[in-house]
Each structure stands twice: as C-alpha cells, then as structure tokens.
C-alpha cells in the first residue's frame, strides 16, 4: 500500500474550514438542545396534563427515529410543505436540536426525579414557589448527578454533526468526502479526519469518566 499525504498538506485550509464549521455547529446544537431540553423536561414534569402527553410522545418518537431521517426530512421535505428553503446549516442545526433535546429532556427529568421528595417539600414548607424550589433546591442538586449524562450528550452531538454532511453542510465530514473525491486519496484523508475527530471527542469522554468516578458517591444516598 503506498500512501501519499501530500493532498492533506495542500488542502489543510479546506479541512480547517470544515473543522471550524463542525465546532460551530456542535456548539450551537449543544446550546440549543440544552435550552430546549430543559424546557421540555419542565413542561413534562410541571405542565398541564395535555402538554406532558404531547411531550412524552415527542421524546419517545425521537428515540425511535434516526437523526439521519430527521435531517433529510427537514432539509428536503419541509421546504415542500412550507415553500421556504432552509440553508443546510440551519436545517442541520434544527434537526440535531430537535433530536438531541429529547435526550436532554430525559436526562433532566431523571435528574430532577432522583432528588428525594422531602427536599422539595422542605422548600415549600419555607414558603417557596415551585420556580424557587426548582432553582434553589432541586436543580443545583440534580445538576451534579446529570453531569456525566450531559457530557455524553455533548460527545453524541459532535458525532451527530457529521451526519449533516448528507445534506451538504460543508463541515469536516463533508469536506473530507469532497477532498477524497477530488484527490483520489480517500484512505489518507479519512484516516487523518478520523484522528481529528478523535482528538476532539476523546478528551470529552475521558473527562466524563473522570468526573463520574469523582461524583459517583453523590448519587448514592
């Protein structure tokens, strides 16, 4: 097997722009899905019954449908329904957010319900409102327990952004595909890009494991 890494040296800017977009899309998707997921979880736990029925249905549906399917549906089908075309980046951000937010919601719900009931009751007994009980008592305790799950959601989100390549978002995966096609050096390029993804995602997984070891005792009560 003869390898030739020169296309990488020639076109590193091309890949770097892809990496930039991957990071931007990841960051935006993480922020949006954490915000949306928190709202969904709160709506499910504290909202009216009809709302929580809808939200449970939404969450379970996202657990059933692949991100890939959500992305192509939003990118190709939504414009037909609405008459508006989506820029690929925004379609990807929307699709990933819709998908990941459901997982965030599950984590938040599990975290909040894992706190002993007496904790909330103690808050109410002091005259706090539900919002205050949540903000002052439940969330601070739950957040520690949620950290490992949040960490793995972050790494899943970064991995999911690669799927945006199928709707032509010029992120790292897509740039690699393009470059591989132009240079006929797919092995070198995909291996190099593999390394780049690994270098981004591995530290996050490591951090989760480390953190999980440290806070595991907080989960036991």
């Amino acid at each position: 097997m003869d390898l030739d890494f020169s296309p990488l040296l020639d076109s590193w800017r091309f890949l770097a722009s892809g990496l930039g977009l991957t990071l931007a899309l990841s960051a935006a998707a993480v922020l949006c899905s954490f915000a949306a997921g928190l709202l969904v979880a709160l709506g499910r736990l504290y909202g009216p019954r009809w709302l929580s029925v809808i939200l449970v249905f939404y969450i379970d549906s996202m657990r059933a449908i692949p991100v890939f399917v959500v992305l192509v549906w939003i990118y190709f089908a939504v414009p037909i329904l609405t008459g508006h075309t989506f820029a690929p980046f925004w379609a990807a951000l929307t699709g990933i957010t819709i998908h990941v937010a459901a997982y965030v919601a599950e984590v938040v719900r599990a975290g909040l319900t894992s706190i002993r009931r007496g904790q909330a009751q103690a808050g109410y007994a002091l005259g706090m409102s539900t919002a205050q009980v949540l903000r002052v008592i439940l969330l601070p305790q739950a957040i520690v327990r949620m950290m490992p799950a949040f960490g793995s959601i972050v790494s899943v989100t970064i991995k999911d952004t690669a799927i945006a390549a199928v709707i032509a978002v010029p992120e790292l995966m897509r740039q690699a595909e393009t470059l591989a096609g132009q240079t006929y050096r797919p092995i070198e390029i995909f291996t190099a890009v593999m390394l780049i993804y690994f270098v981004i995602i591995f530290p996050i997984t490591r951090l989760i494991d480390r953190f999980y070891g440290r806070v595991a005792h907080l989960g036991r009560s």
Partner: protein
Amino acid sequence: MNLDWSIVWSSRWLLLEGAALTVLLTALTMLISVPGGILLALMRGSRFKPVSLFATGFVELFRNLPLLLLVYWAFYVMPVLTGLALSPFVTGLTALCLNVSAYNSETFRSGIASIRKGQGEAGLALGMSRAQVFGEIILPQAWRRVLPVLASTWVSLFKDTSLVSVIAVGELAHTAMQIRSQSFRVLEMLTAMAAIYWLMGYPQAKLVDWIHRKYGVRE
C-alpha cells in the same frame, strides 16, 4: 402542493425488504458485538500489557468517532487492508460492529466492575479457574446490570443502521431515498420513511423502558 401517496403503497414490497434488511443488520451486529464486547472487556482486564493496551486503544478509538466517518473509512480502507472486494453489506456490518463492540465492551466492563471482589474470591477459594469464576459467578450477576444498557444500545443501533445507506447498503433509509430520487415524490417518501422507522422504533423504545423498570438498579 400536489401530493400522491400512492407511491408509498406501490413501493411497499421494496420498503418492506429495506425494513427487513435494517432489522437483519441490527440483529447481526448485536450478535457479533455482544461476544465482541465481552472479549474486549476481558482483554482490557488482562495482566498481559500488550493485550490490554490493544483493547483499550480499540475501544477508545471506535467509540469516539462519528459512525458515518467509520462507515466511509471502512468502505475505502477495508478492501485495501484485506485485499478483498467486500460487498457494501459486509462493509457496513463491519463498521457497525467496530462501533457497537466498543460500546458493549464499556457496558460489560462496568457491569463486571459492579460485582463485589469477594464474589470472585469465593469462587477461587472453591478451587474454580478464572474462566469458571467469570462464567459461573461474575457474568450471571453482571448480566442484570448489563441487560438494560444493551437494550438501549440495541435501539441506538437500530437507528444508526440508517447511516450505512451512504455506501448503498439497501436497508430502509437507502431504499426510501432511492425511490424518492426516482419518483420525485420527495415529501411522500421521506415521510413514509420516517413513519416506518417510527412504527418499528417506538415499540422498541417502550420495551427498553420496561426492561429498565424491571432490571434497573434502584437507588
């Protein structure tokens, strides 16, 4: 907007075939990756350094990559490495197995770690070999902890099989995308694809919840 849903009905056999391949791909991957995961977990615990290092490297690499990239990589690299012309199905299966074995290895590792050390010692004290201790004592107990996680992995895998469509494995996603581009019935076919995944995935997700309730560790 003019919609023609009859395309879904008229391609029902193709779609069904695609769905069957999706299920087959999921089942085969799991069938290979459960023993694969156990093996990797055992290798990681090996006292022989090169073995544990190799297993650690394997697991960390393949669980920290986007699956789509792994699929492409397998598509281009596997023929060169093996010298064989592999079908897209085998290539896709390999990529999925690399990924899921790495996940399963972590699942088994933490399941095994959750068993008290004394349990293994009690087996050793009876004169059992390490293999007997693992098969008779550790694995049956770890199983309860591992099963719910494996169930969740199964559903993720079921969804992830859609990604091998990019190398033309004729599973559900690929079939639906093909019909879409031939018939130009984009909205109808994409919606049908989503609906079929939903119909298949929703009961699985519910089953996972049930397994978690039944076997889940209560705090």
